Protein backbone atom coordinates (compact mmCIF):
# COMPACT_ATOMS: atom_id res chain seq x y z
CA UNK A 1 0.00 0.00 0.00
CA UNK A 2 1.47 3.31 -1.07
CA UNK A 3 1.13 6.09 1.45
CA UNK A 4 0.34 9.70 0.54
CA UNK A 5 3.88 10.74 1.43
CA UNK A 6 5.33 8.14 -0.93
CA UNK A 7 3.03 9.10 -3.77
CA UNK A 8 3.95 12.78 -3.34
CA UNK A 9 7.62 11.80 -3.44
CA UNK A 10 7.09 9.80 -6.62
CA UNK A 11 5.17 12.71 -8.14
CA UNK A 12 8.02 15.15 -7.50
CA UNK A 13 10.56 12.65 -8.81
CA UNK A 14 8.53 12.32 -11.99
CA UNK A 15 8.24 16.10 -12.18
CA UNK A 16 12.04 16.24 -12.23
CA UNK A 17 12.97 13.20 -14.29
CA UNK A 18 10.39 13.36 -17.08
CA UNK A 19 11.62 16.76 -18.38
CA UNK A 20 15.25 15.75 -17.78
CA UNK A 21 14.86 12.57 -19.85
CA UNK A 22 12.75 14.35 -22.48
CA UNK A 23 15.19 17.22 -22.98
CA UNK A 24 18.19 14.92 -22.89
CA UNK A 25 16.73 12.78 -25.66
CA UNK A 26 15.89 15.93 -27.59
CA UNK A 27 19.50 17.08 -27.31
CA UNK A 28 20.74 13.73 -28.61
CA UNK A 29 18.15 13.84 -31.40
CA UNK A 30 19.33 17.30 -32.46
CA UNK A 31 22.97 16.20 -32.37
CA UNK A 32 22.48 13.34 -34.83
CA UNK A 33 22.11 15.50 -37.99
CA UNK A 34 25.62 16.89 -37.41
CA UNK A 35 27.01 13.48 -38.30
CA UNK A 36 25.99 14.00 -41.89
CA UNK A 37 29.18 16.13 -41.77
CA UNK A 38 27.43 18.82 -43.74
CA UNK A 39 28.62 22.38 -43.21
CA UNK A 40 25.17 23.85 -43.65
CA UNK A 41 24.38 24.20 -39.98
CA UNK A 42 24.06 27.66 -38.48
CA UNK A 43 26.46 26.73 -35.69
CA UNK A 44 29.12 25.63 -38.18
CA UNK A 45 28.50 28.49 -40.60
CA UNK A 46 28.95 30.98 -37.78
CA UNK A 47 32.33 29.44 -36.94
CA UNK A 48 33.31 28.68 -40.53
CA UNK A 49 36.76 30.15 -39.90
CA UNK A 50 37.40 27.76 -37.00
CA UNK A 51 36.09 24.80 -38.94
CA UNK A 52 38.80 25.33 -41.55
CA UNK A 53 41.17 23.89 -38.95
CA UNK A 54 41.17 20.11 -39.12
CA UNK A 55 41.97 19.82 -35.44
CA UNK A 56 39.06 22.02 -34.33
CA UNK A 57 36.79 20.21 -36.79
CA UNK A 58 37.76 16.83 -35.36
CA UNK A 59 37.47 18.06 -31.78
CA UNK A 60 33.97 19.36 -32.45
CA UNK A 61 32.63 16.08 -33.84
CA UNK A 62 34.32 14.05 -31.11
CA UNK A 63 32.99 16.42 -28.44
CA UNK A 64 29.37 16.30 -29.58
CA UNK A 65 29.51 12.52 -29.94
CA UNK A 66 30.99 12.26 -26.45
CA UNK A 67 28.40 14.66 -25.04
CA UNK A 68 25.51 12.71 -26.54
CA UNK A 69 26.96 9.44 -25.25
CA UNK A 70 27.49 10.87 -21.75
CA UNK A 71 23.99 12.26 -21.47
CA UNK A 72 22.54 9.06 -22.88
CA UNK A 73 24.42 6.70 -20.56
CA UNK A 74 23.91 8.93 -17.52
CA UNK A 75 20.13 8.66 -17.88
CA UNK A 76 20.10 5.08 -16.66
CA UNK A 77 22.75 5.61 -13.97
CA UNK A 78 20.41 7.20 -11.46
CA UNK A 79 17.73 4.54 -11.77
CA UNK A 80 17.38 2.56 -8.54
CA UNK A 81 15.36 -0.03 -10.42
CA UNK A 82 18.21 -0.80 -12.85
CA UNK A 83 20.75 -0.79 -10.03
CA UNK A 84 18.70 -3.33 -8.06
CA UNK A 85 17.87 -5.50 -11.07
CA UNK A 86 21.31 -5.60 -12.63
CA UNK A 87 24.43 -3.96 -11.30
CA UNK A 88 26.25 -5.04 -14.45
CA UNK A 89 24.28 -2.55 -16.56
CA UNK A 90 25.08 0.25 -14.11
CA UNK A 91 28.75 -0.68 -14.08
CA UNK A 92 29.01 -1.04 -17.84
CA UNK A 93 27.33 2.27 -18.68
CA UNK A 94 29.22 3.92 -15.81
CA UNK A 95 32.53 2.82 -17.28
CA UNK A 96 31.52 4.21 -20.66
CA UNK A 97 30.55 7.50 -19.01
CA UNK A 98 33.83 7.80 -17.09
CA UNK A 99 35.96 6.84 -20.08
CA UNK A 100 34.16 9.26 -22.40
CA UNK A 101 34.32 12.18 -19.95
CA UNK A 102 37.95 11.75 -18.87
CA UNK A 103 39.50 10.92 -22.21
CA UNK A 104 37.23 12.51 -24.78
CA UNK A 105 34.56 14.96 -23.60
CA UNK A 106 36.49 17.08 -21.11
CA UNK A 107 39.79 17.43 -23.07
CA UNK A 108 38.04 18.33 -26.34
CA UNK A 109 35.75 20.70 -24.46
CA UNK A 110 38.75 22.34 -22.83
CA UNK A 111 40.44 22.87 -26.20
CA UNK A 112 37.28 24.29 -27.78
CA UNK A 113 36.63 26.59 -24.83
CA UNK A 114 39.47 28.84 -26.02
CA UNK A 115 37.45 29.66 -29.11
CA UNK A 116 34.01 29.88 -27.51
CA UNK A 117 31.60 32.68 -28.19
CA UNK A 118 31.45 35.51 -25.69
CA UNK A 119 33.96 37.53 -23.74
CA UNK A 120 37.00 36.35 -21.80
CA UNK A 121 34.77 35.43 -18.86
CA UNK A 122 32.53 33.15 -20.91
CA UNK A 123 35.60 31.37 -22.23
CA UNK A 124 36.94 31.07 -18.70
CA UNK A 125 33.60 29.61 -17.64
CA UNK A 126 33.81 26.99 -20.37
CA UNK A 127 37.32 26.11 -19.19
CA UNK A 128 36.11 25.82 -15.62
CA UNK A 129 33.26 23.58 -16.78
CA UNK A 130 35.63 21.24 -18.59
CA UNK A 131 37.98 21.14 -15.59
CA UNK A 132 35.24 20.63 -12.99
CA UNK A 133 33.57 17.96 -15.14
CA UNK A 134 36.87 16.10 -15.29
CA UNK A 135 37.59 16.43 -11.56
CA UNK A 136 34.11 15.43 -10.37
CA UNK A 137 34.04 12.40 -12.69
CA UNK A 138 37.50 11.35 -11.60
CA UNK A 139 36.51 11.61 -7.92
CA UNK A 140 33.34 9.67 -8.64
CA UNK A 141 35.41 6.92 -10.18
CA UNK A 142 38.09 6.79 -7.47
CA UNK A 143 35.56 6.74 -4.64
CA UNK A 144 33.74 3.70 -6.01
CA UNK A 145 37.09 1.95 -6.31
CA UNK A 146 37.52 2.61 -2.60
CA UNK A 147 34.00 1.19 -2.07
CA UNK A 148 32.76 4.52 -0.79
CA UNK A 149 29.29 4.40 -2.33
CA UNK A 150 27.94 7.60 -0.73
CA UNK A 151 30.89 9.69 -1.89
CA UNK A 152 30.66 8.06 -5.32
CA UNK A 153 26.99 9.01 -5.56
CA UNK A 154 27.66 12.60 -4.52
CA UNK A 155 30.56 13.14 -6.93
CA UNK A 156 28.67 11.56 -9.80
CA UNK A 157 25.75 13.87 -9.11
CA UNK A 158 28.14 16.81 -9.39
CA UNK A 159 29.55 15.38 -12.61
CA UNK A 160 26.08 14.87 -14.05
CA UNK A 161 25.15 18.45 -13.14
CA UNK A 162 28.04 19.64 -15.33
CA UNK A 163 27.02 17.36 -18.19
CA UNK A 164 23.47 18.67 -17.96
CA UNK A 165 24.54 22.29 -18.46
CA UNK A 166 24.24 21.57 -22.19
CA UNK A 167 20.56 20.84 -21.66
CA UNK A 168 19.73 23.59 -19.18
CA UNK A 169 21.60 26.15 -21.27
CA UNK A 170 19.27 25.47 -24.19
CA UNK A 171 16.19 25.72 -21.99
CA UNK A 172 17.21 29.15 -20.63
CA UNK A 173 18.31 30.22 -24.11
CA UNK A 174 14.89 29.40 -25.58
CA UNK A 175 13.05 31.06 -22.70
CA UNK A 176 15.02 34.30 -23.05
CA UNK A 177 14.67 34.12 -26.82
CA UNK A 178 10.90 33.98 -26.42
CA UNK A 179 11.17 36.97 -24.09
CA UNK A 180 12.77 38.95 -26.96
CA UNK A 181 16.23 39.23 -25.45
CA UNK A 182 19.13 40.16 -27.69
CA UNK A 183 21.09 37.18 -28.95
CA UNK A 184 24.47 37.81 -27.33
CA UNK A 185 23.20 38.89 -23.91
CA UNK A 186 20.78 35.95 -24.00
CA UNK A 187 23.66 33.60 -24.80
CA UNK A 188 25.91 34.92 -22.05
CA UNK A 189 23.24 35.01 -19.36
CA UNK A 190 21.91 31.56 -20.26
CA UNK A 191 25.40 30.19 -20.00
CA UNK A 192 26.08 31.66 -16.56
CA UNK A 193 22.68 30.71 -15.17
CA UNK A 194 22.93 27.16 -16.49
CA UNK A 195 26.36 26.52 -14.97
CA UNK A 196 25.86 28.28 -11.64
CA UNK A 197 22.22 27.17 -11.42
CA UNK A 198 23.09 23.51 -11.97
CA UNK A 199 25.92 23.69 -9.45
CA UNK A 200 23.73 25.30 -6.81
CA UNK A 201 20.88 22.91 -7.48
CA UNK A 202 23.02 19.81 -7.10
CA UNK A 203 24.67 21.18 -3.95
CA UNK A 204 21.23 21.84 -2.53
CA UNK A 205 20.19 18.24 -3.28
CA UNK A 206 23.41 16.91 -1.66
CA UNK A 207 22.99 19.20 1.34
CA UNK A 208 19.46 17.88 1.83
CA UNK A 209 20.55 14.24 1.66
CA UNK A 210 23.78 14.33 3.62
CA UNK A 211 24.11 15.07 7.31
CA UNK A 212 27.62 16.45 7.11
CA UNK A 213 27.62 18.46 3.91
CA UNK A 214 31.14 19.89 4.00
CA UNK A 215 32.64 16.42 4.39
CA UNK A 216 31.22 15.48 0.99
CA UNK A 217 34.03 17.45 -0.65
CA UNK A 218 36.59 15.15 0.97
CA UNK A 219 37.04 11.95 -0.99
Amino acid at each position, binding site marked *: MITLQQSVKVFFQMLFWVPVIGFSLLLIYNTLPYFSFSKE*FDFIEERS*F*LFKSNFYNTCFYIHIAAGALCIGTALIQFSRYILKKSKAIHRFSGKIYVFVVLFIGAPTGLYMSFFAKGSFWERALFMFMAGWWFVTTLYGFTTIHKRNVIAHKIWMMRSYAMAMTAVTFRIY*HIVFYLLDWG*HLENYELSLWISVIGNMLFVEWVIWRQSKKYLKTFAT
Partner: protein
Amino acid sequence: MKSILYVGATLMIGASIYGFVDYKQTSQKKEFTSMYEEEKKAPVVTGDEKVAEPAISKDVASRDKKMVTKKPVVSQQEEATIVAVKPIAEEDKVAAKETKLIGKSTVDVKASKESNVAKKVKKKKKLNTRLFSRAPLREEELLLPEPVKEEAKKIEKKEQ
Protein backbone atom coordinates in the same frame (compact mmCIF):
# COMPACT_ATOMS: atom_id res chain seq x y z
CA MET B 1 43.75 3.18 -11.59
CA LYS B 2 46.64 5.61 -11.56
CA SER B 3 47.17 5.11 -15.28
CA ILE B 4 43.65 6.45 -15.92
CA LEU B 5 44.47 9.52 -13.87
CA TYR B 6 47.76 10.06 -15.69
CA VAL B 7 46.30 9.61 -19.15
CA GLY B 8 43.35 11.88 -18.37
CA ALA B 9 45.55 14.53 -16.77
CA THR B 10 47.96 14.41 -19.72
CA LEU B 11 45.12 14.88 -22.15
CA MET B 12 43.74 17.82 -20.17
CA ILE B 13 47.13 19.51 -19.87
CA GLY B 14 47.83 18.85 -23.54
CA ALA B 15 44.46 20.28 -24.55
CA SER B 16 44.98 23.41 -22.47
CA ILE B 17 48.52 24.03 -23.77
CA TYR B 18 47.65 23.34 -27.40
CA GLY B 19 44.43 25.33 -27.06
CA PHE B 20 46.30 28.31 -25.63
CA VAL B 21 49.00 28.22 -28.33
CA ASP B 22 46.42 27.76 -31.08
CA TYR B 23 44.31 30.57 -29.63
CA LYS B 24 47.30 32.91 -29.54
CA GLN B 25 47.98 32.22 -33.20
CA THR B 26 44.41 32.52 -34.43
CA SER B 27 43.49 35.50 -32.26
CA GLN B 28 45.84 37.64 -34.34
CA LYS B 29 43.86 36.93 -37.48
CA LYS B 30 41.15 39.37 -38.46
CA GLU B 31 38.75 36.62 -39.47
CA PHE B 32 38.74 35.29 -35.93
CA THR B 33 38.25 38.62 -34.22
CA SER B 34 35.35 39.50 -36.50
CA MET B 35 33.80 36.04 -36.35
CA TYR B 36 31.26 36.77 -33.61
CA GLU B 37 31.04 40.53 -34.16
CA GLU B 38 28.24 40.44 -36.70
CA GLU B 39 25.74 39.63 -34.05
CA LYS B 40 26.50 42.76 -32.08
CA LYS B 41 25.86 44.91 -35.10
CA ALA B 42 22.69 43.15 -36.16
CA PRO B 43 19.92 45.76 -36.16
CA VAL B 44 16.64 45.13 -34.45
CA VAL B 45 13.93 45.75 -36.98
CA THR B 46 10.42 46.50 -35.94
CA GLY B 47 7.40 45.44 -37.91
CA ASP B 48 6.58 49.00 -38.97
CA GLU B 49 9.67 49.50 -41.04
CA LYS B 50 9.27 49.59 -44.76
CA VAL B 51 12.12 49.12 -47.08
CA ALA B 52 11.92 50.26 -50.64
CA GLU B 53 14.17 48.29 -52.88
CA PRO B 54 15.74 50.40 -55.58
CA ALA B 55 14.71 49.49 -59.09
CA ILE B 56 16.99 50.64 -61.80
CA SER B 57 15.12 51.80 -64.88
CA LYS B 58 15.74 50.17 -68.20
CA ASP B 59 17.20 53.40 -69.58
CA VAL B 60 20.24 52.82 -67.48
CA ALA B 61 20.94 49.57 -69.19
CA SER B 62 21.44 51.33 -72.48
CA ARG B 63 23.71 54.02 -71.13
CA ASP B 64 26.80 52.05 -71.89
CA LYS B 65 25.99 51.80 -75.55
CA LYS B 66 28.53 53.71 -77.42
CA MET B 67 28.36 55.29 -80.79
CA VAL B 68 31.14 56.67 -82.84
CA THR B 69 30.38 60.15 -84.09
CA LYS B 70 30.23 60.44 -87.83
CA LYS B 71 32.21 63.09 -89.56
CA PRO B 72 29.78 65.46 -91.35
CA VAL B 73 30.06 65.69 -95.13
CA VAL B 74 30.68 69.33 -95.98
CA SER B 75 30.26 70.92 -99.38
CA GLN B 76 32.66 73.59 -100.72
CA GLN B 77 30.13 76.42 -100.22
CA GLU B 78 29.48 75.45 -96.66
CA GLU B 79 33.19 75.13 -96.10
CA ALA B 80 33.61 78.78 -96.96
CA THR B 81 31.10 79.81 -94.32
CA ILE B 82 32.62 77.49 -91.81
CA VAL B 83 36.00 79.12 -92.21
CA ALA B 84 34.48 82.30 -90.88
CA VAL B 85 33.45 80.51 -87.78
CA LYS B 86 35.76 80.70 -84.85
CA PRO B 87 38.22 77.81 -84.93
CA ILE B 88 37.59 75.01 -82.50
CA ALA B 89 39.94 74.74 -79.59
CA GLU B 90 42.33 71.78 -79.44
CA GLU B 91 40.66 70.39 -76.33
CA ASP B 92 37.25 70.41 -77.96
CA LYS B 93 38.61 68.64 -81.01
CA VAL B 94 39.93 65.81 -78.94
CA ALA B 95 36.60 65.50 -77.17
CA ALA B 96 34.70 65.41 -80.42
CA LYS B 97 36.79 62.53 -81.70
CA GLU B 98 36.03 60.47 -78.69
CA THR B 99 33.01 58.32 -78.38
CA LYS B 100 29.95 59.76 -76.78
CA LEU B 101 27.68 58.19 -74.33
CA ILE B 102 24.08 58.06 -75.28
CA GLY B 103 21.26 58.20 -72.83
CA LYS B 104 20.96 59.54 -69.40
CA SER B 105 24.00 59.93 -67.35
CA THR B 106 22.03 59.93 -64.15
CA VAL B 107 20.50 56.83 -62.63
CA ASP B 108 16.87 57.00 -61.74
CA VAL B 109 16.15 55.21 -58.54
CA LYS B 110 12.47 54.49 -58.25
CA ALA B 111 10.39 52.29 -56.13
CA SER B 112 9.24 49.60 -58.49
CA LYS B 113 5.59 49.51 -59.42
CA GLU B 114 4.69 46.02 -58.42
CA SER B 115 6.15 44.15 -55.53
CA ASN B 116 9.40 45.86 -54.88
CA VAL B 117 8.00 47.61 -51.84
CA ALA B 118 8.56 45.02 -49.22
CA LYS B 119 7.69 44.96 -45.60
CA LYS B 120 10.04 43.47 -43.08
CA VAL B 121 8.05 41.48 -40.65
CA LYS B 122 9.26 39.60 -37.61
CA LYS B 123 8.65 35.94 -38.01
CA LYS B 124 6.41 34.53 -35.34
CA LYS B 125 8.35 32.64 -32.72
CA LYS B 126 7.18 29.08 -32.67
CA LEU B 127 8.37 26.43 -30.31
CA ASN B 128 9.81 23.48 -32.14
CA THR B 129 12.46 20.86 -31.63
CA ARG B 130 14.92 22.74 -33.84
CA LEU B 131 15.18 25.50 -31.24
CA PHE B 132 16.91 22.97 -29.02
CA SER B 133 19.82 22.60 -31.41
CA ARG B 134 23.20 24.33 -31.22
CA ALA B 135 22.19 26.91 -33.78
CA PRO B 136 22.18 30.50 -32.49
CA LEU B 137 18.65 31.73 -31.89
CA ARG B 138 18.06 34.96 -33.75
CA GLU B 139 15.13 36.98 -34.95
CA GLU B 140 14.07 35.73 -38.34
CA GLU B 141 12.59 38.25 -40.70
CA LEU B 142 10.28 37.68 -43.57
CA LEU B 143 10.16 39.97 -46.54
CA LEU B 144 6.52 40.20 -47.43
CA PRO B 145 5.63 41.94 -50.68
CA GLU B 146 3.11 44.68 -50.10
CA PRO B 147 -0.06 44.28 -52.20
CA VAL B 148 -0.28 46.66 -55.14
CA LYS B 149 -2.70 49.45 -54.46
CA GLU B 150 -5.70 49.62 -56.76
CA GLU B 151 -5.24 53.34 -57.29
CA ALA B 152 -1.79 52.83 -58.69
CA LYS B 153 -3.19 50.26 -61.08
CA LYS B 154 -5.88 52.66 -62.28
CA ILE B 155 -3.33 55.39 -62.97
CA GLU B 156 -1.26 52.98 -64.98
CA LYS B 157 -4.26 52.02 -67.08
CA LYS B 158 -5.05 55.66 -67.76
CA GLU B 159 -1.50 56.34 -68.82
CA GLN B 160 -1.67 53.45 -71.24
